[in-house]
């Protein structure tokens, strides 16, 4: 395939106008020793028909959600994506646009961002949301860094019940010693509240927790928030936006910064990315917030319009003094999230959340009832739960895969202490018939 419209004849005219004898002459600034004297060694170009067949063949080798019953979650969820979502994000005027630096011809993007920010504020109860981050891990990490700037302190206390890949990302970012991270181990699938209390001191910038936790359990956010605030630290809560139709918003527990992975809102599972990082905070802290934000204003004729604002926090203006190096965000995924939330509304979101919770509890009770799984945590859960399997997890998962089920996430892959634990995620897509069939197969183990 070829995406160059200039013809050979035009190319000759262009060269003549430039005053060059050949295209190669235009590359004469490249020193001889830095030139590539051979063709790139890459596969031959393909026609569109051949390429489409090749891609279908590759994709066909993957066991996708339409051909298997999956209970995998752990941060990425296979919720139903309404048709209207893809219809909107497929509009070229949205997906082929750049960052809205020329607001007069970017009102579509900018208004959609403002509406997205508004919806995230409504969901979380916070005053301000940015236009998105890369993913939940990036938002979580940036929240720790922001808390240090806000409080001018240099240590954070992180719950061991937060997604291990998020904790690992934070550790990578602060490796240079800019921030000390103290991890408080989980106890019973939730944060050990008394251990948090012991870890807090006058250097602590923030307490960072996740509810639901990585284990699907719900934290005692009220106690954790009070502890953080008593120590003069910020309270950072990672949330699951899809459940905020049924769960109290983090702001109700005093959260100062709310982060989350927003993929579940209208975005494909897509092997884990791109989803989007959610980031919301108090208005008082906006000048320390990372990422872009859209604001409402008026044009010279008095018409309502939207612009990127508070840009003096950002790298293109502040350079090394910026609040973050983030430039590109996940705008198109945020657009999908906004369309999704508009499509389901508060009632749909509550209904979907309720379906997830009811089905998860139905499955959990049934699995425990088979005698092959054992309840390990007392804390309440929403749409995801961990159980201890009585036998070899890997062998069980292989056995169930042969029967058309991806039987949860083996938590032993993340921590030796969690060996034997299996994490099951349930969404509104799982019908009772499918759940019963799975339980039947488990009973036969």
């Amino acid at each position, binding site marked *: 395939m070829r995406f160059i419209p*200039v013809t050979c004849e035009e190319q000759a005219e262009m060269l003549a*106008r*430039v005053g*060059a004898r050949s295209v190669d002459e235009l590359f004469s*600034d*490249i020193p001889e020793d*830095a030139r590539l004297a051979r063709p790139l*060694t890459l*596969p031959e170009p393909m026609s569109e028909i051949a390429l*489409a067949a090749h891609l279908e*063949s590759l*994709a066909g*080798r993957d066991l996708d959600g339409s051909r298997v019953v999956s209970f995998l979650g752990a941060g990425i969820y296979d919720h139903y994506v309404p048709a209207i979502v*893809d219809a*909107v994000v497929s509009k070229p005027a949205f997906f*082929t*646009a*750049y960052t*809205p630096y020329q607001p*007069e011809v970017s*009102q*579509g*993007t900018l208004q*959609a961002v*403002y509406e997205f920010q508004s*919806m995230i504020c409504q969901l979380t109860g916070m005053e301000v949301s940015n236009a998105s981050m*890369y993913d*939940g891990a990036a938002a979580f990490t940036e929240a720790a860094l922001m808390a240090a700037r806000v409080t001018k302190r240099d240590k954070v206390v992180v719950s061991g019940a937060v997604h291990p890949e998020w904790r690992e*990302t934070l550790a*990578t970012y602060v*490796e240079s010693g800019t921030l000390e991270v103290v991890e408080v181990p989980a106890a019973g699938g939730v944060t050990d509240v008394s251990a948090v209390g012991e870890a807090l001191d006058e250097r602590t910038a923030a307490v960072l927790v996740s509810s639901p936790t990585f284990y699907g359990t719900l934290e005692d956010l009220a106690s954790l928030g009070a502890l953080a605030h008593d120590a003069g630290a910020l309270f950072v809560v990672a949330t699951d936006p899809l459940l905020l139709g049924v769960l*109290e*918003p983090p702001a109700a527990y005093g959260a100062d910064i709310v982060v989350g992975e927003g993929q579940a809102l209208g975005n494909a599972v*897509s*092997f*884990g*990315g791109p989803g*989007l990082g959610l980031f919301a905070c108090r208005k008082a802290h906006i000048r320390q917030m990372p990422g872009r934000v*859209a604001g409402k*204003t*008026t044009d010279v004729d008095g*018409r309502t*319009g939207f612009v990127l604002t508070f840009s003096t926090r950002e*790298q293109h203006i502040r350079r090394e003094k*910026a609040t973050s*190096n*983030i*430039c*590109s965000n*996940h*705008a198109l995924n945020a657009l999908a999230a906004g369309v999704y939330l*508009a499509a389901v*509304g*508060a009632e749909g979101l*509550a209904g*979907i959340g*309720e379906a997830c919770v*009811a*089905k998860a509890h139905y499955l959990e009770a049934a699995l425990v009832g088979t005698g092959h799984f054992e309840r390990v945590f007392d804390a*309440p859960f929403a749409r995801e739960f961990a159980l201890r399997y009585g036998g070899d997890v890997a062998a069980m998962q292989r056995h169930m895969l042969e029967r058309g089920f991806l039987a949860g996430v083996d938590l032993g892959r993340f921590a030796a202490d969690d060996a034997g634990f299996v994490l099951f995620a349930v969404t509104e897509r799982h019908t009772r018939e499918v759940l019963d069939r799975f339980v039947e197969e488990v009973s036969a183990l």
Partner: protein
Amino acid sequence: MSTFSNAGGSAEVPMHEPLTGTLIFERGAAESRCVEAPPLDVPAVSLDAVLGGRARSVPPALPHVTEVDIARHYEHLASANFGVDSGFYPLGSCTMKYNPKIDEQACRLPGFARIHPYQPEETVQGALELMWGLQEALAEVAGLPVVTLQPAAGAHGELTALLTIRAYHTANGDPRAKVLVPDSAHGTNPATVAMCGYQVVQIPSDERGGVDLEALRAALDTDVAALMLTNPNTVGLFDENILAITEAVHAVGALAYCDGANLNAIMGKSRPGDMGFDAMHINLHKTFATPHGGGGPGAGPVAVTEPLASYLPGPLVARDGEMFTLSTPEHSIGRVRSFLGNFGVLVRAYTYIRAVGGEGLREISEQAVLSANYLKALLEDAWPVAYDRTCMHEFVMSGGPLRKATGVRTLDVAKRLLDYGIHPPTVYFPLIVEEALMVEPTETEGKATLDRFAAVLRLIAEEAQADPDLLHGAPYTTPVRRLDEAAAVKNADLAWRPEDVEA
């Protein structure tokens, strides 16, 4: 003034409703619904009981709309937007090339869109083979053997590479404190340096637009961890001294990092690895035609030399006979994000590379450079070019003389271009050029488009002479006109709230 013709209508019944300004929250009615939850087929639960008293008491104020409300709303918003499919988008340094439609189809195949990152490797061999193929292709284009696809964007790639370099120095028992960044660099470079806990040392450019070699040599010492350099650089020039630069960097034990924002100029012509760079990031959303999405998602894979490879973040895809597996390098800096990267973006870039092949990539760079030089030749008598040399895929003009002569600023010129249906070039960057206009036509524009752009810019220069106020007031034909950015900060209206409506 109105942007629409008003041959009819009245104050109460305008002929055209504005496309934007009415929020989705203000559409529909309280009973409007679009997507509802399916009927519950398992026993209902008491939410407050099973959630341990955490059930939501007040529902979030989300829109109440029907599907047709949503379809119209976003269609109106889209029509107030400008994308590559709308028209010429010569936004320098951003490589706003055409985004092939097959890429969009590819990433939506169920075998790519509905697979989970924690599935067993044997159930995702197609996806892993695609990632492996992309790693191999990017390594070949970069001239650097090992690639991680993890970073989500260019700035994220910069961070990943600098942390990798930091780990390398630390492992050698030689931690260093400074990173050199030219004054022409993107803002992300110094911001990344600061995030990695390094000190930024700015290096001036010389009068030919390249790195000032003397200043560089003076700044280099054994406390320098790396030089971050965009090459071709942000004024669109290939640094003729590149080999001397990387040699000088290596001479003090520092590493050379290439910001790959401008890779579209050199594919198949020259490779950063062959220039002496140790690491680079590649913006798939620039060079490899994945769409910008109104600000993202992008992807910023990082390519490195063998000595740096064992520090890369995991996981990487490896080939083991006929099987593709995930693994994390031995001395890995750890994760820089969750899961496996922006896979949907990776699918698009892979599709693009397989569509055009190696010779196609070379042809793309050749045309991108020819088109930029052609446009420069058409314009240089009316618009002074910052550096009068053969450029690569972009060039920078200065609006300084025009401002002096007429009071018309580059900002005014940019806004006037909107009236002609053209997206403006990048303005006021790089910072080292007064009233800068940075033009990157890309290879996917035809000659007629370039000719018209040149004619329009020449006309705008004439308009500036004849009637500066015309330009100060531009644009006139866009859905909204110049917006009050100061008021946006002052009012800080960053979210709609139901209480504003009730008030």
